[in-house]
């Protein structure tokens, strides 16, 4: 990670979008940052935490996004500039607090919400466009179209938030958050403010400064006034601009990552003289006069944006309100089918749409070359499926669960949740997981399934969730299971990390975001306090874990917990730099694909450390990838895999 607190204003640094956002917050004088890890937003808090001590600010990994935003709001209420950052799902989690926060207003410390979306759900359970929440909840919204804007917009939003007295939102996407670009640095502030919760009447509010959303309709009207003020500023914002001819055959209206895609597409097609691009950075409220002004440039308007037709609809609303004698362009975009209303975009997709609107032929590369490229890629790129790392405890856990469910024979169900273990939907976890929704969703669903006995339901129910997920969302659902006596087993996969998002610490690890040691919260102590039977297993003890789960399913009854405890292998090996075992396959004993094995280790278990040698007809260990956990030695039916303690 880059050093985001370099004191060198005017110099150029290479930052990923998230680092640029963090830098922007620093330059704005942010004092309090809170977040829950979530791709593609995690590096924002990661980088602020790494400089927090020497920058004199506070950075926290909260148990979930709701608490993160509430905490940030608390800091804002006491006059400290604060920021909460999250992925699209986090925006869903904060929504109740957020909508009320818009009604109460923020404090004298500017408050910024950063939401990072993941189009095409590259690292997410769902694909979701969070921009519409700004329109829905009445929140000023900006989206950066470059790395410089990541910094500059974030910094400016703190000023806007203080001026208007409301939370402001910055929305980013994976390709901005995780790509790197040049950012020119500004000045860092010298001192922090003093925190104080001022209870004196604030002239901007109709009530004395107490943060409450009542009287509701009045507060609502006030929120609209704030938005109107924002709109007026947006009309002349430097974050909006136009490139292209005065009169164009086609006007592209775009924003965010699609600004660069559109620019690239227009250049690739050589249409700079014919196609103009209106790049918007202030997305909500839409600067209507500005947009109206540009709408007259062309008879055709193509709105380029990812996922929802947010901009498209907002612009069409403006067009609908134009005076009757105004020229009305024809709109292209998602409504017309030129741009998909799902999935990421790229310059190629934008180029295709542009060419289609202008009835041009579109071909970016030679057809023959294209065919050849595909062939070579297919032949030379090895198949890599999404899977657990070599040595991952989850592989062993789901192996034990799979066997226990099969032996039990009642078609038991595993409800899933969010984390690395989400991959248990697929071959990585032997296709064990049957449902997956959101943080804590697995145990929630299990609460329902666990109360169907009166309808003849007799299938065992296992809900899996990670240790971080446990603290984030599972506890209320576990309490529900105890209180309402639901019959399910909660399987907590405790690998002592929030692994999927980058091994961030959580309450169970005993370390804070800034590396301070703190009291670790014990999962089993919480369960026992609820009166729940808890078992703790080492997933690498396959036989013991399988029989524990089998016995628990046989016992039935009310909610029970089994904790599968073994540290994340990447965390362990990074720290210890050792391999517990030297693992070997004896080719004389290995029977490979013949009856008695049928390639169990490389076809079913499929740890990346195991290779199938097609020529020799035997399995082999990849000494580079193998982490020496030795679990495969316990599953080989012929005893051909040996493990020797190192």
């Amino acid at each position: 990670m880059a050093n985001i607190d370099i004191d060198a204003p005017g110099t150029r640094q290479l930052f990923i979008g998230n680092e640029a956002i963090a830098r922007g917050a620093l330059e704005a004088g942010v004092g309090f940052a809170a977040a829950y890890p979530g791709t593609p937003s995690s590096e924002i808090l990661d980088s602020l935490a790494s400089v927090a001590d020497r920058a004199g600010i506070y950075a926290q990994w909260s148990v979930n996004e709701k608490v993160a935003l509430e905490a940030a709001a608390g800091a804002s209420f006491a006059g400290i500039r604060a920021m909460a950052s999250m992925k699209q799902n986090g925006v869903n989690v904060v929504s109740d607090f957020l909508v009320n926060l818009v009604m109460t207003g923020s404090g004298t410390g500017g408050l910024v919400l950063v939401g990072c979306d993941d189009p095409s759900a590259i690292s997410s359970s769902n694909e979701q466009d969070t921009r519409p929440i700004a329109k829905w909840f009445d929140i000023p919204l900006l989206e950066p179209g470059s790395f410089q804007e990541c910094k500059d917009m974030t910094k400016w939003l703190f000023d806007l938030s203080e001026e208007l007295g409301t939370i402001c939102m910055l929305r980013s996407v994976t390709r901005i958050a995780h790509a790197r670009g040049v950012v020119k640095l500004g000045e860092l502030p010298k001192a922090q403010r003093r925190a104080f919760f001022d209870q004196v009447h604030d002239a901007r509010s109709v009530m004395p400064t107490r943060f409450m959303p009542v009287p509701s309709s009045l507060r609502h009207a006030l929120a609209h006034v704030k938005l109107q003020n924002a709109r007026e500023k947006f009309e002349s914002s430097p974050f909006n601009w136009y490139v292209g001819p005065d009169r164009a055959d086609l006007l592209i209206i775009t924003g965010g990552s699609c600004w660069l895609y559109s620019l690239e597409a227009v250049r690739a097609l050589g249409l700079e003289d014919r196609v103009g691009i209106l790049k918007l950075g202030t997305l909500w409220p839409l600067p209507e006069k500005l947009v109206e002004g540009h709408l007259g440039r062309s008879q055709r308007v193509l709105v380029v944006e990812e996922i929802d037709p947010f901009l498209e609809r907002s612009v069409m609303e403006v067009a609908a309100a134009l005076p009757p004698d105004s020229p009305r362009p024809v709109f292209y975009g998602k409504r017309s089918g030129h741009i998909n209303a799902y999935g990421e975009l790229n310059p190629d997709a934008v180029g295709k749409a542009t060419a289609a609107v202008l009835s041009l032929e579109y071909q970016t590369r030679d057809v023959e070359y294209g065919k050849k490229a595909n062939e070579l890629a297919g032949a030379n790129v090895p198949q890599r499926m999404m899977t657990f790392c070599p040595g991952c405890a989850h592989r062993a856990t789901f192996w034990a669960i799979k066997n226990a469910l099969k032996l039990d024979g009642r078609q038991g169900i595993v409800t899933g949740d969010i984390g690395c273990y989400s991959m248990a939907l697929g071959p990585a976890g032997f296709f064990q997981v049957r449902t997956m929704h959101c943080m804590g969703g697995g145990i929630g669903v299990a609460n329902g399934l666990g109360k169907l006995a009166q309808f003849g339901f007799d299938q065992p129910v296992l809900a899996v969730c990670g240790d971080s997920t446990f603290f984030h969302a599972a506890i209320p659902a576990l309490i529900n299971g105890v209180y309402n006596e639901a019959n399910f087993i909660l399987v907590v996969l405790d690998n002592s990390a929030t692994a999927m998002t980058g091994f961030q610490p959580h309450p169970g690890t005993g370390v804070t975001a800034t590396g301070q040691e703190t009291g670790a919260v014990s999962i089993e102590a919480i369960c026992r306090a609820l009166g729940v039977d808890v078992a703790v297993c080492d997933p690498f003890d396959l036989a013991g874990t399988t029989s524990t789960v089998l016995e628990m399913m046989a016992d039935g009854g009310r909610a029970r917990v089994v904790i599968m405890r073994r540290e994340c292998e990447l965390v362990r090996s990074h720290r210890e730099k050792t391999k517990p075992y030297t693992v070997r396959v004896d080719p004389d004993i290995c029977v490979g694909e013949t009856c008695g094995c049928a390639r169990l280790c490389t076809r079913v278990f499929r740890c990346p450390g195991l290779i199938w040698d097609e020529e020799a007809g035997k399995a082999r260990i990849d000494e580079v990838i193998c982490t020496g956990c030795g679990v495969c030695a316990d599953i080989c039916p012929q005893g051909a895999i040996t493990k020797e303690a190192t």
Partner: protein
Amino acid sequence: MTTKPKGYRELLDEVIDAGLCTLCGACVGACPYLVAYKGRIVLLDNCNLAEGQCYLYCPRTYVDMDAISQKTFGLPYTGDELGTMREVLMARSTDAGTRERAQYGGTVTTLLSVALAEGLVDAAVVSKDSEDRVPVPYVARSEEEVLDCAGSNYMACPVLEALNRVPRQSEERLALVATPCQCLAVAKMKLNSPENRVDIGNLKLTVGLFCTWALSPDGFHRFLRENLDLPQVLRFDIPPPPAERFDAYTASGRTSFPLKQVRQFVMSTCALCLDMTAEFADVSVGSVEGIEGWNTVVVRTEAGAEVMERARASGKLETAALPSENLAHLKEAALLKKVRALKQIAGRTGSRSDLLYLGLPAGVVDRLLA
């Protein structure tokens, strides 16, 4: 005969899901995919092979009875009531303690002890009662262990799983105590030597058990648990007709259940079995109706004859002629089982020439169903 390759999928379709499985254990313990658990055969993962030894050795997939008979005895399969035999007689252990601990005359226990003591075998694959009387496969390596496994349990036990689990490179000579279906599976293995397992040639002695039917370990065990304090039970017995009882003996006495009540737990597949006296064992052992404390013994092969001779010579086993009345009854009962089963099978398929898993010479079928 079949030329289409068959493996675990067909085993599941044609045998396990079709209710034909006898829980003999021939398909489990040899690979990571099929295991036996609480009276069921469980598939843990999908094997990807089209052809499998699990299907090949199953006693309820196609059996060429003539080929088996030729391999085992060098003789064609005749369909005679008691199968191919050299001698049929009575026998019992000379040690009262052994007879007390074991079933009827304690002959099986004695034969195994002798085989171990005289170095004919190094280990015996048997079934053993766990503390709560669930029968589990076991490898006994001493006379004490053999005695510990004595006694009939009447529930199906996948003993062949233990045979399959013997390490591939083991050179131990083995004995096996097996029910008729298990003997048939082993005979199939001798016809087509298994790959990637211990050499089937290591199996030197198969002691067969007379069997009319076996009880489902899952259902019947639950019944026993609900009605008895199982760890207190010393042994079980089904006395001969007209008793119509299932007896459980504890230190304090005997608890009996009407046989009718117990019959509901008989495995449905047993109705399709023709073999009452374990026709493909080296020596087969059962009770003697009306003569307590003795076993009926049918000697079939050289290996069977040898162990009987050694047992007699050692003084541990005494023998006597089987009264002709008993022999007649035995033959009648065995014939009845054959005919009933054939009728069941033909009734299911609707034709005498489709006998599900049985490959019988047509003449034999006609004679039995005449």
